[in-house]
């Protein structure tokens, strides 16, 4: 028996909490997506580059 039904709660507390959480997750997600896509493009363009870290 799995709790498939998500209990949506609409109040200010939930908005603030989930707002903050998804804001952070979005940044992490978008940041990683950007890195992966840019790396794919860089790889396709060819050349290893001469990056210094």
């Amino acid at each position, binding site marked *: 028996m799995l709790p498939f039904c998500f209990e949506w709660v609409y109040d200010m507390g939930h908005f603030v909490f989930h707002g903050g959480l998804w804001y*952070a997750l979005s940044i992490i997600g978008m*940041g990683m997506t950007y*890195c992966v896509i*840019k790396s794919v493009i860089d*790889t396709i363009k060819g050349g*290893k580059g001469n990056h210094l870290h």
Partner: protein
Amino acid sequence: MDSALIPEGVKRCSLWKFLLALSITSGVLLWGVIAMLLCWIKGLNQTNMNDYYGFALWIWADLAVIALGGGAFFSGLLKYIIGKDELKNLINYAVLIGFICYSSALLILAIDVGQPMRSWFIFWHANIHSMLTEVAFCLSCYFAVLTIEYIPLILENRQINKVPFFHHLAHNMHGVMAIFAATGAFLSFFHQGSLGGVAGVLFGRPFAFRDHILIWPYTFFLFTWSAAAFGPCFTLFITWMTEKITRKKLVKDKPILLLAKISGWMIVTYMVVKSIDTWYWATHTAPSLGFNWEFFFKNNPLYGKTMLFSEIILGGWIPGLLLIFRPTRENSVTRTTAFFLGMAGVCINRWVMVLQTMAVPVMSFDSWAMYIPSWQEVATTILPVAYGVILVMISYRYLPIFPQEKELNPIEGSAGSVDKQVGQTPAGDDSPLQPAQI
């Protein structure tokens, strides 16, 4: 044998020596894994926890490693946001230590809950008013951030970096690392704080309960502050230990002294606030709930005023003062002593906030509850330590963790022979025997 994987221009011990050390540590790890499996298969009756001690050694370990791992978010904040560029020489190690601490904390939590398979309920049925919910969300997210910060290090391994995609990925991730670090600092602020809130909101437990600012008890801010203050002590202490074990200088004094100084000032300011909090709690909060503060430190075999003294003076003020004064900061012995005392102080703080809170009787006719952990609890608490040592060993051997290592430990001979020397390793155990050696 594994020379192709070792970073260029640095020297490592022989593979056999490495594997021997690895197998010894793995033995300890295995002991912990057995205890962990016992807890999962047979249940938490394997522990010495009871209905008075629902929170015990594991929750302390959890809080302690997260506080000590605070060096990662604070160093990241200093380097990427505040612009202390000097810390680039320490940041890799801080991230690695943070990654170990946070993954350990998650593992301990997975063992600690009675129904681990239901752990996801905390996200699905989240009670947003619970401090533990905030901990779970921010801890998981920040662990993701630490993983992201650790990945470029792995990608910089000599062989992995030869793959163009990974090379570019490492470079691009470095490029946006400031954004990840800022997100990490934001998440860290909340989960370190909410871990403090875990105890501070317990209005049924006068020993832990604190007054609030908005929805957050004072412990919320104290925990964040203390993690930022003492976390770097742990990073620097582990760096010092690594230098002793490898018998090499791995980081120059400048970044170490800089972080030590910042840590010192953070500790001193924290101690000012912590002392005020303790005074206010002892003279206002506890009496208003019917308790004389001395009640919490007598009539039991463990929790005396020595504990309070150890936390506030020995593990707080003394390391703070040792680190803010230049002569004691620049002296390796007093500096390292300060790191050690600081680590002990923050661990005692986490201990009393968890275990002493549980031990104190609240009902007037109840009695103090003492507890000694079972071997399964001890083994599963040591398990993350063994895991951490293994990860440090592997990372140190194969990844460019310390940017200054090459410069500080130049390998004799011409630049052209560097590869060859690295390949042969110092003892040359894994290279074919030379005629002269026969």
